[in-house]
């Protein structure tokens, strides 16, 4: 006797609204490929270009608690805003973020990163200067590399001092695509 898809999603929805989940997640389709999106009670805690949940379950459980469950409705808000962004109807995200698993220095860098507007770019060095660590461009690069919530926290808007795209967790072609979407690269 196996559980029907209807019963399965009924339970997952009930779990998401019960308030008993540490993290609810789902795989969201996007023009840059499927994204794993996860949210806690406090907000979005993870977006990943590696969309296979198996790669994330243990890490999410370690960081936020073991009650981690795939539940479509837990990330409804993020899905809707990402859809709007990719359709060109949204320039900024109105989402609570849960960055409690992030180290203090990275917290400061991500807070500055969040302020870079749609359609603009900055450099690793300039971002380092903003957090009063002007010589920490490389460390800022590492923070970008480990950005837990890409797209929403726009590390794609940070480029090398010579204007080169340098690197991106989702692959350089994704960074290029996001910057084109925002009208930076024509």
């Amino acid at each position, binding site marked *: *006797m196996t559980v029907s898809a209807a*019963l399965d999603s009924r339970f997952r929805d009930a779990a998401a609204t*019960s308030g008993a989940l540490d993290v609810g997640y789902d795989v969201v389709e996007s023009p840059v490929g499927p994204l794993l999106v996860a949210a806690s009670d406090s907000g979005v805690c993870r977006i990943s270009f590696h969309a296979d*949940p198996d790669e994330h*379950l243990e890490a999410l*459980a370690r960081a936020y608690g*073991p*009650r*981690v469950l*795939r539940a479509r409705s837990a990330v409804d808000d993020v899905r809707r805003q990402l859809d709007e962004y990719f359709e060109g109807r949204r320039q900024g995200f109105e989402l609570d973020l849960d960055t409690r698993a992030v180290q203090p220095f990275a917290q400061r860098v991500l807070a500055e990163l969040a302020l870079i507007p749609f359609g603009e770019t900055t450099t690793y060095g300039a971002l380092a200067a903003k957090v009063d660590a002007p010589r920490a461009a490389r460390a800022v690069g590492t923070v970008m590399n480990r950005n837990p919530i890409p797209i929403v926290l726009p590390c794609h808007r940070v480029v090398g001092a010579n204007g080169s795209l340098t690197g991106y967790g989702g692959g350089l072609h994704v960074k290029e695509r996001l910057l084109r979407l925002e009208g930076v690269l024509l």
Partner: protein
Amino acid sequence: MRPRLRLTEMMELVTPIPPFERFYLDHRDAVFAFLCRRLPREAAEDVFQETFLRALRSYQSLAHGEHLRAWVLTIAGRLVIDDGRRSRPQTHELPEIPVLDGRPAYAELEHLAEALPPTERAAVVLRYGYDLDYDDIAGALGSSPEAARQAASSGVRRLRRKELT
């Protein structure tokens, strides 16, 4: 004297609690099959959802990840009994099912079986308290149906001996 284990070695002996998603995927079909054998389809679906919601609420307080099948079937078994009580026609002529001191059979049995070794205790309670068959019990204990039958019967023998003394 046995050598003392270091903390890290002890931690390796404890089965970690899996992320709830893995626990749910591992046990949902067995729980649903268990419920379908005892309840009409619609009630089985309601109790299925309630079982995993309860499991979710108590998941934080688990000390380790062992015997999770037995744990979730125990939750399901209790809810089946509650469901039976709710749906029984309430008339004044019909007395409650007689239980010795007002507690349901499974509670009585859990108390009686407290002194048994863990495997025998689980087998006795699941067999006679929750009316699971030996296939289910084997699944819950991670053993064979025959081993489950032997554990239940040696548990019962031990209880009888205790009663006589």
